[in-house]
């Protein structure tokens, strides 16, 4: 009875779940130090009230029977129940909240925030908790407002492709729903099995297909949000065009919770392409990668949907820590994954054939493969999407720098980082050296590099060596210190490297308008 079910074929969705969902009990065996212990420069602002039993009673009555909460003040609660809310995905940051709230309706969110605002209780909104900059967990005892129970899909218009849904809908679930209707969510990222659309909006997530479908700033048509004082802002329109005054939802997109809580979204979705192709190239140099990019855009034009870069170090890690098949036998300094999506298989295949012939003839690429079926397609994507998890397995920590840089110098940062770590005697094979390796990969099509440094343990020496040096390097080249991961706790001190004093001042002015008591997301962002 050994039919195909025996094969460890994991449907794409479950693959991402295993990569990014809290990995159950094992994940919290080695808990990180409390954030306030690791970062002594952070101090709890005394203006915030401390949670009391009366507060908890009020929240209980707001949430009632359909929401839920975890009350850390109650002696019968297992403190480990709050770990998932206190600890971030990277296992790097750990807060000390005593209360996690999971409201069921926007009205409950409104009453919760109104009360917190009156009592000056600090709040951190939380979605799937898959963020990579420590933005979604408390620093001290901020109350966690988790949107996970607000997970309904409300409407879908099959003609316009506009979906309205709650913030807490898991990205993959939204996409699966749309797949049944022949549409797709305009955003895709490795954390899709756990991240929530509200969090994606709040962090203006970029993902794997920004190249083709643009950013959430364009695809979010409407929004319902709750201000820190409890006011519900209803701008949940499903209109493609609505030029009637300041577009306030744009401020919320990418605000990371700084201005309030996003509770509902309406998103315009593209039709799901019927023909997807993935090619994987081995490239001899970064200059050739740039040439390959240029040729790819010329040949593939409108069907190009992803252009991802991986260096050899990243692929060596994938070989070591995952069972994924190697697409190319030989090693190459760089690898590129190209994806096309279109409505006509023959048309797309003709274009890819022409591109590949060109790349091979001009010797821009050394080698390559094309996925012959869905299973090979997923293997190729796994070579790119699995890098993050393999990095986490290589050591017990990873320093991540998600930057935007001009294409000609993009990879120079990786080389320079490696040189610097060697100079500082931090990178080597022996256990005395904290750094295991330096890896570069990313959404090259968007000029976005993920510079990752795998370490045996998080080490202040590495941090001092790299920060602010990396940000200075990026700033010199007029890049962004955070292409898509956001600011959170990690990058708050460095925002000045990418935004001017005047702009930061204006952001703080607006913060005072939205959140005069500063209860939302303290200690983070800007």
């Amino acid at each position, binding site marked *: 009875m*050994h*039919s*195909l079910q*025996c*094969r460890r*074929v994991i*449907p794409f969705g479950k693959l991402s779940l295993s990569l990014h969902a809290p990995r*159950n*009990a094992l994940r919290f065996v080695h808990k990180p130090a409390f954030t306030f212990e690791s970062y002594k420069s952070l101090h709890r602002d005394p203006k915030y009230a401390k949670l009391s039993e009366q507060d908890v009673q009020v929240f209980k009555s707001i949430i009632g029977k359909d929401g839920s909460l975890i009350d850390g003040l109650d002696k019968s609660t297992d403190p480990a129940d709050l770990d998932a809310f206190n600890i971030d995905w990277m296992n790097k940051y750990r807060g000390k909240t005593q209360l996690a709230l999971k409201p069921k309706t926007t009205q409950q969110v409104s009453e919760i925030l109104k009360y917190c605002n009156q009592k000056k209780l600090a709040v951190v909104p939380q979605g799937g908790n898959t963020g990579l900059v420590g933005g979604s967990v408390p620093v001290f005892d901020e109350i966690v407002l988790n949107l996970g129970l607000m997970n309904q899909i409300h409407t879908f218009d099959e003609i316009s492709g506009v979906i309205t849904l709650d913030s807490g809908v898991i990205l993959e679930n939204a996409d699966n729903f749309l797949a049944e209707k022949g549409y797709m969510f305009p955003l895709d990222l490795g954390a899709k099995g756990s991240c929530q659309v509200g969090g994606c909006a709040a962090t203006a997530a970029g993902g794997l297909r920004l190249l083709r479908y643009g950013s959430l700033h364009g695809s979010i048509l409407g929004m319902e949000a709750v201000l820190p004082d409890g006011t519900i802002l209803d701008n949940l329109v499903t209109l493609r065009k609505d030029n009637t005054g300041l577009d306030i939802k744009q401020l919320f997109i990418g605000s990371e919770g700084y201005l309030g809580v996003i509770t509902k979204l309406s998103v315009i979705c593209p039709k799901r392409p*019927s023909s997807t192709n993935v*090619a*994987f*190239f081995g490239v001899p140099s970064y200059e050739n990668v740039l040439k390959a990019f240029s040729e790819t855009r010329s040949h593939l034009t409108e069907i190009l949907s992803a252009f991802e870069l991986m260096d050899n170090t990243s692929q060596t890690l994938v070989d070591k820590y995952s069972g994924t*098949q190697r*697409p*190319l036998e030989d090693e190459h300094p760089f690898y590129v994954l190209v994806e096309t999506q279109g409505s006509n298989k023959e048309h797309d295949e003709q274009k890819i*054939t022409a591109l*590949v*012939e060109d790349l*091979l003839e001009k010797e821009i690429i050394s*080698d*390559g*493969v*094309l*996925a*012959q*079926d*869905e*299973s*090979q397609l*997923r293997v190729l994507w796994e070579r790119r999407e699995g890098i993050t998890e393999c990095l986490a397995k290589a050591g017990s920590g990873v320093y991540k720098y998600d930057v935007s840089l001009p294409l000609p110098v993009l990879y120079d940062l990786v080389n320079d980082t490696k040189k610097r770590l060697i100079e500082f005697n931090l990178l080597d094979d022996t256990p005395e050296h904290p750094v295991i390796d330096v890896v570069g990969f990313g959404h090259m099509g968007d000029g976005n590099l993920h510079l990752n440094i795998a370490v045996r343990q998080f080490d202040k020496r590495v941090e001092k060596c790299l920060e602010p040096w990396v940000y200075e390097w990026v700033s010199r080249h007029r890049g962004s210190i955070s292409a898509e991961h956001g600011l959170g706790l990690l990058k708050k001190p460095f925002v000045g490297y990418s935004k001017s004093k005047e702009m930061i001042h204006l952001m703080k002015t607006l913060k005072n308008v939205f959140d005069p008591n500063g209860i939302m997301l303290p200690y983070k962002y800007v």
Partner: protein
Amino acid sequence: MSKIRILVGVKRTLDYMLKPRINATKTAVDLSGQKMSINPFCDIAVEEAIRMKETLKNRIEDTLVVTAGQTSSEPILRQCLAKGIGRAALINVGEKELEPLSVAKLLKATVEKEKSNLVLLGKQAIDDDAHQTGGMLAAMLGWPQFTSASKVRIEGDKVIVTREIDGGEETLSSTLPAIITTDLRLNVPRFANLAKVMKARKAPLGKMSPEDLGVTIDQRLQTVSVSEPVQKRQNIMVKSVDEMVKTLKELGAL
């Protein structure tokens, strides 16, 4: 030691990662607009043939992949050529529905025409799960058959095959000629190298018809209806919310 002429039979099926949909009249799987691909077990057979060619080199005189279908099956043949199979041919059956018996007859005729002495097939196709073609072919040819192979070795004139069975592993051997049907753990099919894929697009493909092979294709089976399997769920009854939370924690779900 005799030379080996390998024949690999492959089938074009729905891409096995895709969820099949049943048509409106509930008489068949709806394949319209769906991505088709090589049956995964056949892919494993192709991979094994190429590996034999790489290991045994000149001992393998010929490798030929055939499929019975229409011109829509040609891309699969080209993919096999790109990976390293020497020759490919399409047995064009037009619109005819194929049952395992017909396929076995076509393969028998091909074996005789091509003087193949080793046939590699997938153990079953993922659309009908019939698991019959290999066995029928062996009976027609009077050849030994090794079904559900998970390891294959050729030593001199002997074929040695290990199969996974309920009790563990079973190793069988015989001399050539023989038929081997492949199981999942035999190998992991390679990716086809792009340069070779480009070349294979222009490679000539052999063409045969059932008439050329002296075979009439009969329909002896009629599909009465097709329906989805009943979803089985595991139910654990709990008496309270606390017990539910405890159970979920034990299951590692929390």
